[in-house]
């Protein structure tokens, strides 16, 4: 009877189902966008700066100087190899601030010794090359950022003089030929980066076999915490520390949380608006059927039975609406997931400034669809309490006369 009632007034049912569907679609789009953008920002942070995990000297995070570079021994490498099932690849770095000079010009620089192949795998460093080439591990030339090259008037084949603080009070000084020029959108990087082959940088800093950051990229980002715990148990905490990207970038995490909270408020405003839409339909439906309800109760249907019929109608309508919402929401979001929305001039530049591609990304993680569908479904069910309550309070003789 409930099923037949649903199709008795197709337009009414269509409106109710549509209300639920639109609520589900809008919630899915909103939360997919929030999740997609978060993933995009996290990927940007992880790939461009911290990686998912970092092993550092125990004191480096509080005082990031070359004196707190860790010794990367074969034993450490062997220990990490025991977690090869979780580790995708490892990116070694040794870095420190110094001065970059040519003739009379001097600028502050971030001098970073890297494995160019691993660095490119992590953050596409190689693709930023605009002149020259990236170095191999055995090369001895530097790759510098375009802004710095411009400020110092350096071109390919010129010599750059680097000065800095070496390990344990040693002076770091060296001259390197410029073999490549890379370009960054973020000015802080574009005006400061100097890349050296890892061995060359370790020699420059007088810190052979030492690294300031040992970045670990996991196969599955969700496993980073678990891997962190495992490594933590296998290293000497007096000398080494393992950090996840969240621990290294607490400000970014706080910013994400604040932004997520804003979107959750927006989502709840959306739920409330959609809820009132559904509620309006339910009230109209109840008003239209009061007389029928009065008759049904008069001829012997019990209130609980009538309430059950109403509840079944609400559940079926909600399920239909939610199912339609998930299908339509998925189709929309999947399209945007495959073809991210390109952000216009101003906001796009802001993204680029932070080293993030100027696209609005969407997520198709199953939990988004599940949680939004469940939330909208439970809201619809909650609204379904109204007809049930109305049935239990209905004055049947008055209703039957309507």
């Amino acid at each position, binding site marked *: *009877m409930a099923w*037949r009632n649903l199709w*008795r007034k197709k337009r009414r049912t269509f409106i109710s189902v549509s209300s639920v569907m639109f609520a589900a679609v809008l919630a899915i789009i909103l939360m997919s966008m929030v999740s997609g953008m978060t993933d995009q920002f996290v990927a940007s942070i992880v790939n461009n700066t911290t990686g998912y995990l970092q092993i550092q000297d125990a004191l480096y995070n509080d005082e990031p100087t070359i004196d707190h570079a860790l010794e990367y021994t074969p034993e450490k490498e062997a220990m990490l190899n025991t977690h090869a099932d979780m580790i995708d690849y490892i990116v070694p770095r040794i870095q420190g601030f110094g001065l970059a000079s040519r003739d009379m010009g001097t600028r502050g620089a971030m001098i970073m010794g890297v494995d160019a192949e691993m660095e490119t795998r992590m953050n596409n460093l190689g693709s930023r090359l605009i002149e020259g080439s990236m170095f191999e591990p055995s090369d001895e030339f530097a790759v510098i950022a375009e802004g710095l090259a411009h400020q110092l008037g350096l071109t390919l084949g010129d010599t750059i003089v680097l000065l800095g603080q070496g390990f344990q009070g040693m002076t770091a000084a060296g001259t390197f030929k410029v073999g490549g020029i890379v370009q960054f959108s973020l000015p802080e990087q574009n005006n400061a980066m100097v890349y050296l082959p890892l061995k060359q940088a370790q020699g420059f800093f007088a810190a052979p076999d030492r690294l300031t950051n040992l970045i670990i990229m996991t196969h599955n980002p969700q496993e980073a915490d678990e891997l962190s715990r495992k490594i933590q148990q296998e290293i000497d905490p007096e000398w080494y520390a393992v950090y996840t990207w969240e621990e290294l970038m607490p400000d970014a995490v706080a910013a994400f949380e604040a932004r997520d909270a804003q979107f959750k408020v927006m989502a709840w405003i959306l739920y409330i608006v959609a809820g009132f839409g559904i509620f309006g339909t339910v009230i109209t439906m109840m008003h239209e059927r009061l007389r*029928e309800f009065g*008759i049904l109760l*008069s001829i*012997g*249907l*019990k209130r609980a039975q009538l309430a059950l019929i109403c509840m079944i109608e609400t559940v079926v309508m909600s399920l239909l609406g939610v199912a339609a919402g998930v299908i339509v929401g998925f189709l929309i979001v999947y399209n945007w997931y495959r073809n991210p929305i390109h952000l216009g001039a101003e906001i796009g530049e802001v993204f680029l400034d932070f080293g993030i591609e100027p696209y609005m990304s969407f997520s198709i993680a199953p939990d988004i669809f599940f949680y939004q569908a469940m939330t909208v479904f439970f809201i619809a069910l909650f609204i379904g309490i109204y007809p049930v309550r109305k049935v239990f309070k209905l004055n049947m003789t008055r209703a*039957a006369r309507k």
Partner: protein
Amino acid sequence: MKTVIKTSNLEKVYNGSVAPVRAVNNVNLEFQEGEFTAIVGPSGSGKTTFLNLIGGLDKPTGGQVIIDGTDIASLKESQLFDFRLKHIGFVFQSYNLIPVLTAKENVSFIMLLQKQSKDAMEKRAKEMLEQVGLSDKLNSRPNQLSGGQQQRVAVARALASKPKFVLADEPTANLDTESAFNLLDIMSRLNKEENITLIFSTHDQRVIERASRVITLVDGEVSKDEMFDR
């Protein structure tokens, strides 16, 4: 003859906006098995309220309604639902069939609530629809039937579960003359053949002329109670 319904000092007072409205006032009546009674009176005389009270649809503010030895005014709501389902058939002015059910399903509906077997329901529904001349409309929905046909289905529904009595609230009010006569013929025949007690509230002279008893209510009180040999 067996008394089916007895009312003692029955009273229903509504709280009006200006002063209390005494819709039914000190009504003492007995209805016998197989009687065909018409309750008549001007609009607002308390006919429908009286029917609601003896049908257990409304609670009296005073007095008793005794059916089969039970004072239904003392029953709880859930008990009243069961009591109505078991003992009382209703026919309303506006047919009030369930729009999503076929004629046969509408007639079976109360038997379904009484948890009768499917075969018994099927048999009785067909039998009742045959009795009201609608054996060819078993699978028609209410919107496929005329007003007169819908009211005949409503009568079949009211009688299908073999209630102790049937309450009909102005059942001919919305019918044309031919449909009204047709319906009255059917109800009179069932009243005689199945010895069913019928109590009508009506303004309709055609009903009054068929009734074996005519009770006139004025301002909620019985002003006349006449018996006819018909």
